[in-house]
Each structure stands twice: as C-alpha cells, then as structure tokens.
C-alpha cells in the first residue's frame, strides 16, 4: 500500500475529526479524496504539522489527528520531546512512514534505513507509540481515538504518490473554514 491508499481507507474515520495534514502531496491527496472543512491543509512550512496539531489539541478539547510523514518528522525532530512531555489525551500523530521524501521525488529518508521513528518517539517520552503495517492503519487509528490517550502511530507503507491536483484554495479560506469547524 502507498500513502494515498491508506488515506482512502481511513477517510471515513478522518471525516468527523479535526485533521492537520502535512505539506505537499499528502495534503493534495487528502483534499482530492475527501475534502472537509475539518481538514487543515499545510501549503508550506515542511515539518510543522505535528506542532500545529499539538498546539490545536492543547487549545481545545476535540480530538486532533495530525497526518505527518517520516521526512517531515525528521525535519522537525525536536517535536517528539515536546509531544512526549506535553501531549494531551486528544492528540494523535499519524506518521505515514514510507521511507522517502514523497513530495520531492521519493528520495530515501533515514527512516527507511537504520533510523526508527518508533524508537525515537518512545525515547522522546511518548507513552503510547504504535508501529503498524499500512493495512492495519485504520484499525489502529480507530483504537487510538477510542482509547482517548495521546498516541503516536507509525504506519509503515510503500513509497509512491497518487497524481492529484495542487490545492488552489486560498490559505486564509482554509484557515477560516477550519476555525469555524473547530468552533462548531
């Protein structure tokens, strides 16, 4: 399975939740598969999805699912200790770990080599860290929502991207409709 197949499979779970989605092709794929006002698409700023999601989860009580990538987490590794020491029960970080920088041409990341993001998240102080295979992502994500505990999921999948259009929505529109959905 590649990332877009995971996103298609978990779209029914994501639909009713606040979702912060990583820059580039992941946001394009989610936008094309199931655009929702509850989705916040990052159009720039690689690496900060997990931080934006954490700030959002700390500021209000609804569950927040952050969809991140292995390359983006590696870009902002300092996020893991901050999550490990502060994440509230409504925070879920779903790292779709395809071992590559998907949006830039599938160059390999260290997460696809010797580095384990699962091990790093645990070492950073994250208490509930679950590594799963791509096919199990939906079940693990639903269990995380049901558990009501801060969870980091590392979903191991194959490298590859679906061809989806660029998001042309204005960033202020994305942000405004997302904030309306947060308040609803």
């Amino acid at each position: 399975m590649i990332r877009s197949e995971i996103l298609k499979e978990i779209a029914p779970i994501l639909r009713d939740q606040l979702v912060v989605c990583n820059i580039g092709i992941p946001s394009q794929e989610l936008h094309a598969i199931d655009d929702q006002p509850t989705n916040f698409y990052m159009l720039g700023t690689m690496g900060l999805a997990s931080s934006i999601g954490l700030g959002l989860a700390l500021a209000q009580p609804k569950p927040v699912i952050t969809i991140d990538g292995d390359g983006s987490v590696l870009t902002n590794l300092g996020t893991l200790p901050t999550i490990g020491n502060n994440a509230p029960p409504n925070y879920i970080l779903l790292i779709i770990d395809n071992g590559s920088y998907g949006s830039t041409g599938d160059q390999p990341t260290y997460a696809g080599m010797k580095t384990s993001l699962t091990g790093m998240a645990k070492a950073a102080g994250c208490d509930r860290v679950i590594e799963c295979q791509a096919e199990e992502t939906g079940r693990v994500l639903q269990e995380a929502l049901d558990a009501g505990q801060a969870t980091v999921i590392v979903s191991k999948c194959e490298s590859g991207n679906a061809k989806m259009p660029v998001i042309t929505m204005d960033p202020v529109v994305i942000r405004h409709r997302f904030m309306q959905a947060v308040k609803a």
Partner: protein
Amino acid sequence: MNIDKKIADDLVANDVSFVTTVPCKQLAGVIEEIDQRDDIFHIPSNKEDEGMGLCAGAFMGGKRPAIIMQNTAIGVTINTLATLTQYYRMPLPMIISYRGELREPVACQVEMAVHTKALLAQLNIPTYHFHWQKDVEEFDNILKYTFMCNKPVAILTDANFWGGYGDQ
C-alpha cells in the same frame, strides 16, 4: 518597575493564554514569571519554528498565542513566518531578546544583530525596539495592534532594556 511582571500582566490582560519560549539569558526572568502564571499555559519549544507551529495550532484552537525567543531565531524562522504565520494570516506577538546590541559582551551576537531589523523589514513585519525600561509601557498597545491586524509583530528588547548583560 518590574518589567518581567509588567510583560506577563499585559499578556494576561490581552487574553494571551498560550506562550511558547526558547530561552535566552536576558529572557530568564520573564520566562520564569510566565511559567508561574496560572492563567498562561507555558510550553517550551526546542526550536523557534516549532514554537511558531504550536502557536498557529493554538490560535486555530481559539487561544491567543505569543512566542518569546532570541533574535538569532529570525535566521531560522523566515520560512515559517512567510509560509505559515503570514500566509494564513495569523497574529503572533514575538517578544525577542535583541542580542548583539549596546551593552552586549559576546561579539558573535553582533553578527545576527546587524541583520535583525533588515530581515524583519524585508518581511514587512511591524517592529518595535525597547531600549529603555519605560518603553515597556507600549507593550499593551502593541499586543492590541497585533491581534487587531492578524500579523506577526516583533518586539526587540535589548540588553539596556533588561538592565545590562553581565556588565554591571
């Protein structure tokens, strides 16, 4: 006047309840003050761009955020300021210790100080410079201005403002 307390009081009075910090020796007092306030949630960041991400999320969750950091951070947050905070039009008061200005003992700090205002100007970020302790009286107005216009706003606070840096 206790400027640490005045800054924390103004933050609370302007409903700023989510503050992230990356430390600087000059900022130690205000960070400690904020950490002790029950009405402010303080979350230390490991890097300033990470902190701006936290602030963006907190803002979308209905909280008014602020970041406290050193001016060297301008060098690492330009992309975040341009493509997150400004692009999505979010307010962010940035209380910045202006290292490398008058009364600075560490020569290397001057190397970023000489770029700080130019970089902020290039980004069209409204910028205020606190040099005398009385300048803190403007802080309340600056916070109101920031949340009125939904922009990142820089408040540069130099060693003279904080009462010197190891030279007295």
